[in-house]
């Protein structure tokens, strides 16, 4: 009698997918550091890294090696458990978000006697957007715990800044997404993408919502102009002041993974995810459609990452009161207004 039948195929398939996505996002984050320096250089009429390999393409490897070779210092007044947990948590939450993102529709494997349709999404849970919000708001614990455990005034100050900033901007971000969710009527990322493939991209219905989401995403990632938790000239280095070696590397890396993931989320929610404009994917074979879908998602993501960097190297940092004014007095009313207008239009169209 079989009580519980386990489909080993699905376990293997998910494990492979998880490995591929984690490797992919790590590599992309790695090259985002290179891209960041190159974009900064180009915008400032400089050359950027060009010594390691052709065009400096091996620079991230050299940087990583350097970080690994550094001495690992744990200050003796710090809380050791929390000190190690901080960067681990930052990295973990950064990676976890990628679980619910649909990277493509599905691929069809038909070889070696296996005939499977593999969905290119680790978990298609019906509360995908909510899951992302939950995990992203956990990300601030990495900053907070790191800053707290360092037992250092500047780090603690930076941690408090980071925490209050993320909480303030999460509100506006959530409200701006509610308008989008009222439109789509679902929280599942995959369904949102499928709706956009059938109709228009959500950016045409929610331009204001997208703008608010974009600004909040900058703040959530602690990127300039909202990089107050690591404001160099005010707080030395912010929450990762006491960190060295790969623990520092984890913090820096988590920032780039966050940037990558939020670019993917923006592409998925507002720019059709793996949808290619002007092409009807259903006429193509499944695997070809999946391939161009992934490529199109990555292109959209790279464009967003470029915008992240472009903004960073253009705008100066906000003052703290300006940051709070923008968040609470401008973005939240604007997001509420957007939500009401969207609701009114939906009700009016229903008659």
């Amino acid at each position, binding site marked *: 009698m079989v009580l519980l039948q386990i489909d080993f195929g699905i376990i293997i398939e998910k494990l492979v997918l998880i490995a591929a996505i984690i490797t992919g996002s790590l590599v992309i984050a790695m090259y985002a550091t290179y891209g960041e320096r190159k974009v900064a250089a*180009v915008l400032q009429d400089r*050359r950027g890294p060009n010594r390691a390999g052709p065009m400096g393409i091996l620079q991230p490897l050299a940087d990583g090696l350097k970080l690994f070779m550094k001495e690992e210092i744990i200050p003796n007044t710090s809380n050791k458990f929390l000190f190690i947990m901080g960067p681990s948590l930052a990295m973990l939450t950064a990676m976890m978000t990628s679980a619910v993102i649909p990277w493509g529709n599905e691929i069809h494997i038909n070889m070696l006697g296996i005939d499977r349709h593999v969905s290119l999404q680790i978990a298609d849970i019906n509360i995908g957007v909510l899951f992302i919000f939950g995990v992203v708001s956990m990300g601030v614990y990495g900053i907070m715990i790191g800053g707290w455990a360092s037992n250092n005034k500047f780090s603690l100050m930076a941690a408090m800044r980071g925490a209050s900033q993320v909480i303030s901007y999460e509100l506006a971000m959530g409200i701006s997404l509610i308008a989008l969710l009222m439109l789509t009527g679902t929280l599942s990322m995959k369904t949102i993408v499928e709706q956009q493939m059938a109709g228009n991209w959500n950016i045409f219905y929610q331009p204001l919502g997208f703008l608010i989401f974009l600004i909040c995403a900058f703040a959530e990632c602690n990127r300039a102009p909202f990089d107050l938790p690591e404001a160099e000239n005010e707080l030395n280095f912010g929450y990762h002041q006491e960190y060295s070696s790969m623990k520092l590397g984890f913090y820096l890396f988590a920032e780039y993974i966050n940037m990558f993931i939020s670019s993917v989320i923006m592409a998925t929610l507002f720019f059709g995810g793996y949808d290619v404009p002007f092409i009807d994917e259903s006429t193509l074979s499944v695997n070809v459609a999946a391939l161009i879908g992934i490529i199109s998602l990555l292109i959209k993501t790279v464009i967003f990452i470029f915008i992240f960097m472009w903004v960073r*190297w*253009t*705008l100066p940092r906000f003052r703290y009161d300006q940051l709070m004014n923008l968040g609470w007095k401008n973005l939240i009313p604007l997001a509420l207004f957007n939500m009401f207008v969207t609701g009114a239009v939906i009700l009016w169209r229903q008659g």
Partner: protein
Amino acid sequence: MQSLTKRSESVERKPMTWLERMYLPGIFKGMAITFSHMFTKTPTINYPEQTRPFSKVFRGLHVLNRDEEGRERCTACGLCAVACPAEAITMEAAEREPGEEKLYREEKYAAKYEVNMLRCIFCGLCEEACPKDAVYLSETFAPANYKRQGFIYGKEDLLIPNPLTDKEAYEKAKGEREKTTS
């Protein structure tokens, strides 16, 4: 008050308009400016591969010159050492032996000729003092060194290659500042 230049602008402290308070137009303007810098030419000179050309009058390392027959011009008169404000030049004179006429132009020559490149201020007074056109400053500069001793350049470092036996190296070392007067 009359302004000194035409470029000065008076500062107005009127409150910002609604559009200015939105900041977005300003942000887009700034971003357009940075984006336009993607298409401007990078003024960087990639140093080890590329070098900046020196001006014609650049005074660099000293060269001890030879005449057309490959003989050393220097007679160790010591005028350069006297003229040198930094006292960077030391020399020892020696008498030309019979049979050395192909090596030294006159009866007296510099057996030792040292310039301390750490003391030298590259003023070019030695070049002006020299009655025999034997020393002049070239268009290269002293490379970095780990020891002070390495900056004391002797005759083997300063002397130009023989134009008769090693024409190519001679042309390369000659530079454009060789003195041809007198």
